[in-house]
């Protein structure tokens, strides 16, 4: 049942808070995101800087970096994901408890970045796990990470717990874990999870590209 925002404001001024269960749950979730404590490359340095006094990620309730995936809500993929590391990242994601969110921080985690055509570089972690927020940059500044975190909080606060448009973690049929790629002779097998990685269809203009 929707609450009339004007009525809610008026009640609030009288010291009465009116809310829905959904809003309350989402407020709790968005206000205490505990990230998984791991870094993959130079982006991790910016991530560490964001948690320190100057940028103070604690303002958003997200300073409690957990060394165990069982206690973490948020996976911050900060840095280049090598093909050797990718199965471990997916495994860590699978071990996290629902609800869980993923931020792909920096060009490498998004697409492979400057190392895209490298023989051991995964072209984006979104090939294997669902990414909620992408933060471009090489590396992104701590302000950009905080902006990404704010965007994620907004996303969580709009999540539906019931109905057709409910969040993945509220859906009994929603996937909680994703297949871990295997090491092949030259590349990971498969190179991407077709269930979640659907690149946009592209066509090439005749004679173009030079």
């Amino acid at each position, binding site marked *: 049942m929707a609450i009339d925002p004007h009525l809610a404001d008026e009640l609030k001024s009288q010291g009465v808070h009116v809310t829905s269960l959904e809003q309350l749950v989402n407020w709790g979730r968005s206000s205490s995101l505990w990230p998984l404590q791991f870094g993959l490359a130079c982006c991790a340095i910016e991530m560490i800087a964001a948690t320190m006094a100057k940028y103070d990620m604690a303002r958003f309730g997200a300073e409690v970096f957990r060394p165990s995936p069982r206690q973490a809500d948020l996976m911050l993929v900060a840095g280049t994901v090598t093909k050797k590391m990718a199965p471990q990242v997916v495994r860590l994601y699978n071990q996290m408890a629902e609800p869980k969110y993923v931020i792909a921080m920096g060009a490498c985690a998004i697409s492979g970045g400057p190392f*895209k*055509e490298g*023989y051991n570089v995964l*072209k984006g972690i979104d090939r294997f796990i669902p990414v909620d927020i992408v933060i471009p940059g090489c590396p992104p500044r701590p302000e950009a990470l905080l902006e990404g975190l704010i965007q994620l909080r907004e996303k969580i606060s709009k999540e539906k717990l019931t109905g057709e448009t409910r969040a993945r973690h509220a859906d009994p049929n929603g996937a909680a874990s994703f297949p871990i790629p295997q090491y092949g002779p*030259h590349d990971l097998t498969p190179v991407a999870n077709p269930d979640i990685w659907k690149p946009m269809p592209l*066509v*090439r*203009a*005749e004679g173009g*590209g030079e």
Partner: protein
Amino acid sequence: MKADPAAILEHLRTALPGTTLALRTNPGPSAQHSILVERESLVAVLQHLRDAMGFDMLSNVTGVDWPDPVKADSVAVVGEGGQVSHNEGFLEVIYHLFSTENRVGPLVVRARTADRGDGAHIPSAVPIFRSAEFQEREIYDLFGIRFMGHPDLRRILMWDEFVDHPMRKDYIAPDDYEYEPTPHGAVVEKAKAHYPAADSQATFSRASD
């Protein structure tokens, strides 16, 4: 202080008769000349450099793939000591030695494998410099040089199931092309192979779906 490879070479010749050594001069502004050692005498030379000449630190070991031996010899001009002849390509290992005692370095020592085949090998420097262990594993992983006498020669960067050695010049990476906004050069050819052509003004555009 910069090492003087020419003087060190003369010293090695008198101290270790029977070893085949050559000076490679670097014509570039750095003028970082190096000593080319036949692989059979590599261990003896490194041992002598460490024990008798004070080169107590091996700071770096790296590899180079030379599919074309002529190119290898044009980059580093033969100074003196004769040409080490190769008909086919070879793999080269480069050692950077420092002397913390005499504050000299780097001294660049090179050694070459006989060929670029699967059996390409060179003696390991680990018995003399323990610091070579991981770096030789890395060279084995990426270039495929076998270091004879290495205590634990396994892949270190790539996964164990990986075949081939990706830093070799003739390594062909799996064809897993993905859209790039501004392709050029060889990438354009890849893009043409992976994306169908269509009538459009833009170089690349999203299909209207």
